[in-house]
Structures are given as C-alpha cells and as structure tokens.
C-alpha cells in the first residue's frame, strides 16, 4: 500500500503549501480588515468611483443599501 504514503506525502505537501500561503496572508495583513473588502468589491463597477477609492477605507462606515 505504498501509494497511500505517496498520496499522504503529496497531500501533506499541498496542505503545507497552503499553510505557507495562509501564514503569508496573515503576516501580509490580508485579514487585518475583515469587513471592507466585502463592500469594496461591490463598487468596482461604478464609473466614477475610482477617484473616490483613493482613500481606501471610504466605505467602511457607510455600507450602502441600494
């Protein structure tokens, strides 16, 4: 049943890769703010928001309800 060990090895490598990615993402500050991103992605469509978005956190306090 050595295929098992091969698969486990590979699975651990993959999981390890994801662990590194996870650590990177936390260390990188990706999850420092776990609210703004969910709102920000809604606004990339609007024609004139690019200028507004210069200040990144503009929508934090005012989630619009259109």
């Amino acid at each position, binding site marked *: 049943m050595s295929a098992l060990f091969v698969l486990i090895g590979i699975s651990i490598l993959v999981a390890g890769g994801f662990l*590194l990615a*996870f650590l990177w993402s936390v260390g*990188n500050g990706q999850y420092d703010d776990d609210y703004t991103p969910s*709102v*920000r*992605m*809604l606004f990339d469509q609007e024609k004139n928001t*690019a200028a507004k978005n210069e200040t990144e956190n503009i929508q934090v306090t005012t989630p619009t309800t259109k």
Partner: protein
Amino acid sequence: MQVEKFYYDNRIVKNFAYATILWGVVGMLAGLWVALQLVFPSLNITQYGTFGRLRPLHTNAVIFAFVGNGIFMGVYYSLQRLCKARMYSDTLSKIHFWGWQLIIVAAAITLPMGITTSKEYAELEWPIDIAITLIWVVFGWNMFGTILKRRERHLYVAIWFYIATFVTVAVLHIVNSFAIPVSFMKSYSWYAGVQDALVQWWYGHNAVAFFLTTPYLGLMYYFMPKAANRPVYSYRLSIIHFWALIFLYIWAGPHHLLYTSLPNWAQSLGVVFSFMLIFPSWGGMINGLLTLRGAWDRVRDDVILKFMVVAVTAYGMATFEGPMLSLKNVNAISHFTDWIVAHVHVGALGWNGMLTFGILYWLIPRIFNTPLYSKKLAANHFWLGTLGIVFYAVPMYWAGFTQSSMWKQFTESGQLKYSFLETVTYLKPFYAMRSLGGTLYLIGALIMVYNIYKTVKAGKLVADEAAEAPALEKEYHSHQGEHWHRWIERKPVQMLVASLIVILIGGVIEMVPTFLIKSNVPTISSVKPYTPLELQGRDIYVREGCYVCHSQMIRPFRSETERYGEYSKAGEFVYDHPFQWGSKRTGPDLAREGTGNLKKSDGWHFRHMREPSSMSEGSIMPAYPFLLEQDLDTNSTPAKIRAMQTLGVPYEKGFDKEANEALMAQAKQISNNLLNDSIRVAPNKEIIALIAYLQRLGKDIQQPQNN
C-alpha cells in the same frame, strides 16, 4: 497617488461564455442520450455510440467543457475587477482559450473511438493529459501574472479559491495521470489494483472538490454579492471556511472505496474527514444564502438571484448528503446504485448548472452593454431547470434505494430473492422518468441560448472596458515589517507555486516507480499475470468502457458473496493496470465471472455479446456485434507485454517475443470450444480475446464452495 487608466478584457470573457453555453448544451444532450439508452438499448448505434463509450463523453463534457469553461469565464471576469488590472497577457488568454477548446475536441473524438484510460473523469489518454497540463500552466501563469500586477492590495476571498483550484488540480492531475505509454494512444496506469483505485479516487473526489466546488465557491463569492448588490454576509466566515475546506477536502477520497479491499484504516480516515467536511461546506452555503438577508423580496422579482439561490441550496443539499453517504452503513446501501447518480446530479445540475446560468444572465448583458432580451424567458428557464432537477433526482433516489434493497433481499429459506436482471428491469420506468427530468433541464438551457442570442444581437461587445485605479505602492509596510516579508512579497504566490510544483514533480518521479513497483509483488501466490490473450481481452474491456456499468469488487456482505462469490481480496488485483473496480452496477459485478455459479460457457458469452437480450431477456446492455467482425490487433502484444514488465508484472524475460504464439494457441482453443457449440468464428477476432478475459475473472484464488 497616480491614478492609472486601463482596460478590462471582455472579449476573452465572451469567448469563454460562448464556449460554456455550447459545451453545456452538447454535454447535456450527451447526458440525455445515454439516459435514453438505458431505456431503449437499441439507441446504442454502432461501436462509436455505445453507452460505455458515450457516458465518459457526457461526464467529461459536462465537467471539463461546460463547468471548465464556466470557471474560466467567471475567473477572467472577476479576477480583472478584483485585482483592478487587465489580464496579465492577452496572448496567454488566447492560448488558454483555444488550447482548452482543442483538448475538448480531442476528447470528443477519442472517447467515442474507445481511446480511454478507464479512470473515471481522467479517461483521456496520455498525449491529451500532457496538453491539459500545459494549458493549465498557461492558465496559472496568466492568473498569477494578473495577481502580481494588481492594483488592489487585498486578495478578495474569491481569488484564494481560484488559487487553491489551480494548485490542487495541477497536482491531482499529474499524480493520477502517471502512466506508461504503450503506443501513441494507449497507456497503462503506473499503479495497479488497490493502489490504482486509491490514487484514482483521491483524484476523483478532489476533481469534485477542486474543479466543481472551490472555483464555483469563488464565483459565488463574487457574483452573488454583485447580483444582490450587497456584501457577503460574513467576510470572516468566508475566510475561515475557505481555509478549513481546502485543508479537509484532500483527505476524503477513500470514501469512494468503503468496504472494498482498501485497508480499513484508510477507509476510516476518509470517513472522518468526509464527515468533518460538512462544517466548512455549510459555512459556504450559509454565507451565500445569508448574503440575501433583508433582500429576499428581491428574489421574487430577480431571476438571477433565483438561479443563485437554487444553486446554493443544491450545494447545501449535496454537501449534507456527501458526508452522510460517506458513513459506512449508509454507503453499504448507496454505493454502486443510482443514488450516487442522483447525488452528483444535484451537484452538477443544481450547484454548477444553476450558478452558471445565473452568472451568464448577469454577465452577458453587462459586457454587451444592453438589458437582457427577456426576463420572462429567463424565468421560464429557471422553472424548467428547477423542475428538471426534481424530476431527475427523485426517480434516481427512488431507483437507487429500491435496487439496493432488492439486491439485499433474501427469501425466508435464505435464498436471494431477486436475480440481478429482475432488479434492472424494475428500474426501467425510473430511467424513463429521469430522462424526462433531463429533457426539461435541456429545454431550459436551449431557451437560454435563444435569450442570450437575442441579447447579444441587440447589444455590442464592450471588448475593452475602461477603468481606472491608483497604482499600488511598491513597498508595503506591514505592521511587523521584517524584511523576509518584503522579499517574499515581491514574488509571493509565484514562488510558492513554482517551488511546490518543482518539489512535487521531483518527488513523484523519484518515489513512484521505486515504491510502487516493489509493493506490487503479489501477496497471494496463486495470483498469476494475465495471458497475452487475456491481456488483449482486458484492453477491449477497457476500450468498451465496461467498467461504466460493471463493478469488479465484491464487498464482504452476505448478499454479495451469495450472489457473486467470495469477497474480493487486495492481492487479487496486483497485475491490474489499471484497476477495473468500477463505481456503478447497472449490470452485475464481474469480479468472479469466470468461476463458481457464475461461470458460463464460451458459447453463452459469444451469444450474449452478439445480442444480450437473447441470453438475458430484458437486458439493457448494448449489443457488441462488431467484436465478432473485428480482427484483434496482435501487433501491439509485444509492446504491451514489455510495458507490463516495466511495471513489474513478472512475465519471463523475452516473453514479449513469444507472446503472440501463446495468444494464438489460447485463441484456437476458445475457437474450438465455440465450434463444439456450433459457433464458427476465427480465432483472430476480438470476441475471442474478450471471452478469454471474462472466463479468467476471479479464477486466481480458491473459493470456498457456496450453495
């Protein structure tokens, strides 16, 4: 801060959208056709149109062509906007698009020709496998290139789902596709028997996980908030359930092999992880549905949201059912039956299909800058699709449960109550009803084709959509600010993936041959390699996709050992490159077809293959008259023997040169047997080899006598 102007590439999105629609219809049509074949076996027209060859065409078309293009459509649309950047390279986008379509065409040609590895959802032969790997790398290159030149620091959760999809599918595909080529379009799996089964279902399950689930969750996290115009219920939950999901999924594969010859501890491992998966899966489902909190009134009017709600609900149902089916006592009933067919179609039709439709209705009007042609038609599509799912799933659940119960039913005197054939003919009405469900679903999809055609006609493609965003600062000062951070940040994802792939390829190439071949040494001394004729017959069995309907795995239940003989042992499969355990019993198990009560004469097999219903009245098996006409290709015998020797099968040295003599001797013997049965057939016909293989099945171990 400098605001930069740039353009989103909508043409590539349009191309993938068209491909999604085209292949979706083709895949569903193929599905409807094979469903009808189970009701009307006469629809098995010519050798290129038998169920065994067309069902893989259906599954591959739906998974890799329909859903595959759907993934790319959604990724190319959302990634550009989430990264505030055009795709990294238009050339790579084009290579990706056309390469993927060529692979699909290659699949559509080779599968009906019987060119297959017989590993489910990985049936394509080695040259196409290599092409898939290359195109997948192009996709990844393009995606990571875009991520690296993004103008938005934060990677939205959808992007993480895309990354996980890319990395894991690459690894799965490479590991499972390891094979030794025999000729340009024929190869033998590197693994044998139990090992092959394990690798295959490690792949097979994760194909569901990382091709049908994670990318679509990513799409859900982009398109559902967009369609509802409100943020996802909990961004924090999305992050937690993402990491939990990808860590758990990869261990769940063995739940496809419960009660088989796989070691018990591996089975249990699969069960435990499968069960845990319910939590992250439902995390995603809940997060999707609750995104609509306070907006449910809009679901009444907005057909796109309707599609998405049904999709996410179907996801929730399928991922509740999955862990349940992974429990051994449930699996004992459900495995090998139409229950599983129902389960996967709730996932495919409900989750993947309905979400794809929702995205198409949302996206096409946007990139063509025009309203949808008809909301009413879209609503009709929605209801036809939803009803189609119900009409499909309910008969299949019913059929699965019924058939399993009939298999396990004993009379008062302890005899099996139903012959296998009785359980098959009982299911025909259910199969007919299922076709009705499929028809409804297909009609819905055709209505969508018309609706989108009219929409596209009315609008004009905004091929390059203008956008602007401030450039990303080059240096990011994290609050910790150590310098390895900065170093890794310059090429974070690229480095990660490149090193992972290098390690994996290197590791696999080194380990697989040395490890696996040694452990293929038989543990049952009476198990012998196939004779050349049997080997050729086995390749015909593979070519015709017999594994699609016939298992070769007797589980240790009394209802199975009574019907099929002694339960299967791991040691019996050590020369099976690839394994042929199957996953569905539309026909009976064949693991011991050549032994005990199941043993039939050569003449029976001959007549049965010529016209199955002549020997088993009411059989829904296709007829194989062409096997009686076609000559066996004996030129390939030496190469096949040599390939097997490389894989560690103990044929004597130099046997490849004598193999064809041995083959002819055995063929003449069978031909003579048939002559005694007043059947005149030349020994060089394919049917002879197939009979040799069928008569060999299960013979290697001494079985206790059953009554």
